[in-house]
């Protein structure tokens, strides 16, 4: 006879074994693993930036303006004498943080909508999907620009301008994924057990499409970062002097030929992080694919 405690322990053990196997598969893709380290590194740096930067990122110092990279200022200084490295460390929390929060909000709302439209179909499903499609006509960046124009500049507006266009993207994604799962017999079996729609959506459909959502979210992080920084670059996002990376690049564009490092360093950093997220997405797709679980 099995005792309850032993049973729970064994079940959790088993779940752990699967998680470990997934982790091992993930590690096998070296480039993807490397990308995740890059992202973690940059993220850690940004968190650091909340508490400490080598120099004050806002305080101008005209005597030290436009100095090339040196020991004192590893990335040089900008036209106001501000240490570029400090500005970048301080700006990470805006670029990455805003993108992260916006995507998470957009993903959550979009997932709810997608689950509902995919599960209920009929009039509810069709309505949600039609509204979604209207929003999907324009590319995310243009949508974001539109919202920014309406909402103005600033942190909250940038957040909304990025989050809102992402909602329909997730709604469509999750709707398609739900369609694939909703006709499976185990869903019918749950209905026979008198389970409600929301119960089935969150306990039977969501767990089986989660891997798709996670992988897509990784890709959309890249999109989010690009959108936040694009808005900043255009002057429609986080306003100067806040050192959001896109804003930095936008402000510095006059210096692109004379003092290129002012423009390129933040730009390249954005590119690296976005590429890292894309590669990470590929690696996660392999690791989380349920079909590969059978080869364990």
């Amino acid at each position, binding site marked *: *006879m*099995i005792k*309850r405690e032993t*049973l729970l322990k*064994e*079940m959790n*053990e*088993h*779940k752990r074994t*699967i998680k470990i196997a997934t982790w091992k598969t993930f590690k096998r893709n070296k480039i993807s693993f490397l990308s995740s380290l890059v992202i973690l590194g940059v993220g850690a740096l940004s968190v650091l930036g909340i508490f400490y930067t080598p120099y004050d990122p806002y305080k101008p110092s005209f005597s030290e303006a436009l100095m090339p990279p040196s020991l004192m200022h590893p990335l040089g200084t900008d036209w106001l004498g501000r240490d570029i490295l400090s500005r970048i460390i301080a700006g990470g929390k805006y670029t990455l943080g805003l993108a992260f929060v916006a995507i998470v909000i957009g993903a959550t709302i979009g997932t709810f909508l997608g689950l509902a439209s995919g599960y209920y179909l009929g009039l509810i499903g069709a309505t949600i999907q039609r509204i979604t499609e209207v929003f999907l006509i324009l590319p995310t960046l243009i949508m974001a620009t539109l919202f920014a124009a309406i909402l103005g500049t600033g942190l909250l507006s940038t957040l909304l301008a990025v989050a809102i266009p992402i909602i329909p993207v997730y709604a469509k994604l999750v709707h398609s994924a739900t369609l694939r799962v909703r006709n*499976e*017999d*185990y869903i*019918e*079996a*749950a*209905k*026979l*057990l*008198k*389970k409600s729609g929301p119960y089935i959506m969150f306990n*039977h459909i969501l*767990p*089986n499409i989660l891997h798709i959502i996670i992988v897509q979210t990784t890709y959309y992080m890249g999109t989010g970062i690009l959108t936040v920084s694009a808005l900043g670059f255009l002057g429609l996002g986080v306003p100067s002097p806040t050192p959001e990376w896109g804003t930095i690049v936008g402000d510095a564009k006059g210096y692109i030929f004379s003092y290129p490092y002012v423009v390129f360093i933040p730009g390249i950093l954005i590119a690296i992080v976005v590429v890292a997220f894309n590669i990470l997405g590929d690696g996660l797709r392999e690791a989380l694919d*349920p079909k590969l*679980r*059978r080869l364990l």
Partner: protein
Amino acid sequence: MQFMKILEAVNVHKYFPLDIFGRKKIRAVDDVSVYVTPSETLAIVGESGSGKTTLGRILSGLIKPDKGKILYKGSGFNGFHGKVQMVFQNPDSSLDPSWQIYDIVSEATNNKSLESVAEALETVGLNPAYVTKYPYELSGGEKQRVAIARAIATEPEVIILDEPVSALDASIRAQILNLLLDLQEKKGYTYVLIDHDLGRVWHISDRVVVMYAGKVVEEGKTEEVFQNPKHPYTMMLLSASTSSIPKPKIHVDIQGELPSLINPPSGCRFRTRCPFAQEKCKTEEPQLYSTSSEHKVACHLFEKF
């Protein structure tokens, strides 16, 4: 109580529209009435496309009929009340792949206790230690046992078996059928078996309903229908079977394909494949004629057989 119809379909129709205007429809189930009495096994037999699967889903409540009604213990039933359960054909898709066996079975029990889950698994012949496993770690036969455990965990009255062994290896089928017979003996479950294989129907059913192109063509006690078939389609099915069942006096070779369900043939739907078809079969749709107490046939020529 003996003859109370525990589950009954009364004149049910189910059409699946092909376009949004519903002009073209697939008439999957066309005016069908069936019933089952407590602790009996009713078999619904037919080829793919006969409507048997759809009828099964209507009986379980998963599909709502367009016309007609379903009665449970005499009163209308809408939705689910847990007393009618189902075992599905494909063991790979009937268990949620992201759930452990423990959760799959306990979802169906009332008290979610370890004891009731362990008991359910033991009843179907599985080691209770399986609770930690995921469906992909089990074989087809084991998954089907879990599906049965889940169905009986609700303490149902009727279990609809939708081709429960078709997807399993021939050597495993016997085990599962024996289990089902065993359970019925011990707990008195009522079964509705949906299958295309007459060997299995002969093995476990008390009464049989033969379906063709959405309609019932013959029904009655299994022994009677198998030993004394009156519909040419039934004779065709019996002739084609590779199992050791009674063979009909008139051997009818298989010929032809199922007719269109959108525009079925006029009169008797089977006439395009029937070697005995006459003029009347084209113009008049046969009703279910009674040949003896419970044996009914939808064929104009039944008296000749």
